[in-house]
């Protein structure tokens, strides 16, 4: 079954996933928490679930985090 791990991981959906619009609406808050080393994922589990599953929103998160941390 491990051969299918990548496909299985892609196909799995998380019912907590809030979708792109709601995740992007709080992205700045989520990023500030993450940049401060606080538990952004536990404060916003639905956003965390979305960022794990959505490539474009995950990229926006990575880009904004990098921007504010001066990377």
């Amino acid at each position, binding site marked *: 079954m491990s051969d*299918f*791990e990548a496909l299985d991981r*892609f196909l799995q*959906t998380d019912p907590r996933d809030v979708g792109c619009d709601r995740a992007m609406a*709080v992205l*700045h808050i989520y990023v500030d928490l993450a940049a401060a080393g606080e538990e952004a994922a536990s404060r916003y589990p639905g956003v965390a679930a979305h960022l794990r599953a959505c490539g474009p*929103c995950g990229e926006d998160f990575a*880009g904004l985090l990098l*921007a504010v941390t001066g990377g």
Partner: protein
Amino acid sequence: MEPARVPVAELDRESAVWLSRLATRSGERQAAERELHARLVRIASAEVRRRSASTPVTGQELDDVAHQAAADAMIAILAKLGDFRGESRFITWAYRFVILEVSAKLGRHYWRNPPVALDARQWERLPDRFGLDPVRHAESAAMLAEVRRVVKDELTEHQRRVFVAIVVDGIPLDALAAKLGLRRNAIYKVIFDARRKIRQALVANGYLDEAGVEQR
């Protein structure tokens, strides 16, 4: 532009200074706008470089995207200053605009020189995307055939077109959204529902465990 309202939450000093400078009617406001715009250009330029490996947009066009993104973000920020609630640092709130502009613009620019046409239907590339080898493993071949059957027989025409474009042909989600005139969220929801439907079929036919890899 409406002057910034006093935020409800208590602001950090840097955010308070930004809001104060941008709300004033003196030359200080123009200086603040120039400084903010310069920062947006720097962030947008860094962001397009960071994403350059995953977009067909290159060279001068990439620089143009960065400058356009910074200009459009600046307009949006000034128009929405009154919406800033102090829930994050001001600069994080402002940078979010430029990051999202970069994403949207790279999606639109994708179609100027697309490496894959819409509706190319490159099913032969699907095994590589998921690290499967249908030639060596009969089970992989059977599973991929089942995925293709579900896509053909159980998805709606719209779901099928979106799934094939994103998952089979590898077209970036923002590029497809731009092409179809839809929001990113609308495309994501279609893919989300398709993923769930395909997985249900694979579980029902014994190819995948109900629990999934995360629960093992």
